[in-house]
């Protein structure tokens, strides 16, 4: 292929031409550096524009709208200051939202994560068919939230649902037909669905973390006479620290922003007893057309997530995220 060879050499000579033989003068290198900064900036522009238009601008608009009483139609001219916020912290449903968010966070951390860790440790052993188990446990995470919600609506269907049959076989008839229909059982039921859906994801994170623990350390520990529990407690667990911290972070943020599962399964009911902040926001924004008030809810939701992420990254993930903005200069 003579032609291709010739173009190749041509290109090469063209590229090679500007390479200086002597080391460049300092001024020129500065210019070059500026030039490369300019091209970096140039490549960032499309992403930055999208980020500004679809992330930052909506945040600013939501904060602004939160100071108005506005029905979503016509001019926004009824400035009410912080009235939406004072109303918010006087609203039993919203205060309940906060409590329910905390409930889900606490349960996620104390029940879901240990359970995920347990299965991960189990499936990290040499076990016949462990790939199948891993896939099975991870599968629910792949399903969309809405599919999951519809599925569990059927499982917990009063009368004909699978859950009613199961508790009937176990002799717990008192539970039949309650599930999503009783304010006292709706949150635990919801949490069961959340575990089913998300524990596989955390299990995968832990498995990846476990793979990263060198076998030599565990071997050394057992030579030193450490039992299985001691090896887990003093070697595996500390070395899994970064993964656990990330897992906790994702659980908390996920619980705060929970919407789709709840919306499809209970719509926040019965009588607001499974409502989350995101559901309250949707109710006020798109059902009651109180866009100003809904914006105030979204601002609070955003602030809680933001403050939590900043503090968590600053104080908990400090060692895991060296170089992050919140690392406070120290590495």
């Amino acid at each position, binding site marked *: 292929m003579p032609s291709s060879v010739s173009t190749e050499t*041509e290109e090469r000579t063209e590229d090679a031409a500007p390479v200086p033989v002597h080391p460049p003068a300092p001024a020129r290198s500065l210019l070059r550096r500026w030039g490369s900064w300019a*091209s970096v900036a*140039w*490549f960032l*522009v*499309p992403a930055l*524009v999208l980020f500004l*238009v679809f992330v930052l601008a909506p945040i600013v608009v939501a904060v602004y709208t939160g100071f108005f009483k506005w*029905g*979503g*139609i*016509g001019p926004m001219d009824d400035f009410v200051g912080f009235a939406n916020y004072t109303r918010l912290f006087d609203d039993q449903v919203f205060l309940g939202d906060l409590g329910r968010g905390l409930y889900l966070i606490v349960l996620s951390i104390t029940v879901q994560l240990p359970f995920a860790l347990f299965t991960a440790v189990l499936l990290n052993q040499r076990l016949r068919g462990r790939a199948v188990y891993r896939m099975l446990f991870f599968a629910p995470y792949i399903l969309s939230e809405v599919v999951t919600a519809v599925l569990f*609506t*059927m499982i*917990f*269907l*009063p*009368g*004909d*649902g699978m859950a009613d049959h199961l508790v009937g076989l176990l002799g717990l008839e008192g539970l039949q*037909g*309650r*599930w*999503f*229909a*009783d*304010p006292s059982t*709706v949150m635990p039921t919801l949490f069961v669905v959340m575990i089913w859906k998300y524990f596989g994801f955390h299990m995968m994170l832990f498995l990846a973390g476990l793979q990263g623990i060198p076998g030599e350390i565990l071997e050394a520990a057992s030579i030193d006479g450490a039992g299985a529990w001691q090896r887990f407690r003093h070697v595996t667990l500390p070395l899994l620290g970064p993964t656990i911290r990330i897992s906790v972070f994702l659980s908390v943020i996920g619980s705060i922003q929970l919407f789709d599962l709840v919306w499809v399964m*209970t*719509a926040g*009911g*019965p*009588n607001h007893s499974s409502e989350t902040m995101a559901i309250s926001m949707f*109710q006020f924004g*798109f*059902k*009651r*057309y*109180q*866009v100003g008030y809904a914006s105030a809810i979204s601002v609070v939701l955003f602030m809680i997530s933001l403050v939590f992420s900043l503090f968590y990254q600053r104080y908990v993930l400090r060692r895991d995220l060296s170089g992050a903005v919140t690392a406070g200069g120290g590495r």
Partner: protein
Amino acid sequence: MASIPPSRRRFLALSGLTALSVSMAAACGVDDSGGKPGADGKVTFAWWNIATTEPGKSLFPEISSAFMSDHPNIAIKTTSLENEAFKSKLTATTSSGKLPDVFQTWGGGVLQQQVDAGLVEDLTDVFDWSSDLTPVSLQAYQLGGRTYGVPYDIGMVGFWYNKKLFAKAGITTPPATWAELLDDVRKLKAAGVTPIALAGKEKWPGHYYWAYLAMRVAGLPALQEAATTKDFTGAGFVQAGVHLKELVDLQPFQAAFLGAGYATPGGQAATMGNGKAAMELMGQWGPSVQKDAGADLGADLGFFPFPTVDGGAGRATEVFGGGGGFALRKGAPKEALDFLKFLVLENESKLLASNGYLPVVKGAESQLTDANRKVVADSLVKATGFQLFLDQAYPPAVGQEVNDSVADLIAGKKTPEQVTESITEAAKGA
């Protein structure tokens, strides 16, 4: 290589710039939704409807194509959205101040807000064929003496009941008064039949009870007056809650009704259709949803109007319901109204034959063949008064508060007084 090709960096910079400017131009592009005749004299207008299910799904495009082939100079750009998706999208579009030329409306409070914002065309002087339509069907779109919408469907809420189960409990005639209804509920319970199916999760089916009771006790004028004075604490409204509580205290609903949806599996319609409950308070669409979600009760299904309350101001012929209509954006082309005339007046028999709609044209009820539709249409013809669904008649915040508060009353979380106070508070704040 005679001419020097652009360097790679400059080439990338140029292409980046082009891509960016193209996307910016697209983002800033003006949405030309039509309305003005084009250069070729062609009029284009946008039509947003909610006909995503049969029969409208095939019927509406069929009618619009027929209209366009009759009028080659008119092009209709149709957008069909699912009910809830439509409401969300219209909210977003409304806040931008640009409505589509012709859009689905249910009248009442939402339409009033759009009218107040100056977004809707006043049809009063051009809608000269409104006298061909039944007064009941037009009422939802008449605000402050002006007409802002054209109805294509109208219906009402009443009790659908299972004749077999009523007979099983020894009930021969449907109840005519609230006291008789409570009696029948007791009889049904004694016979081991669940008296009423209710979708507690969805809240709107529950509000029918309170609204109808308010109509029967306080009367229609009181409901209309409360909308303007924003005061729902009158004795009649409290009494409506008290009567509803009498019913709730009998525990007439199916097991786990608080978690039940309406059209979902195991929901209100399925419970009713499968013969697991004796009655439901539902609109004219009740039988078809029962059929889809459960089974067709056929000849066992009957209809009776909401009973009267002894000593109340309302009468049994005053009906509670709503329908569907279309409104025009302010400045929409006048051809859009011609299209609506074609849709409603000239295609009424097609709409009725599809068994999906109820007549809005005077005298058209005789064309109905389905027994269930006939009985509803006859009640509408005989109606002496009409009240639009409260969650549509009042501003959305008030309507949703009615739904929420009545749901709380049914769940035993609010007293009748607290219901009226919450609604009043929402009305004053809205």
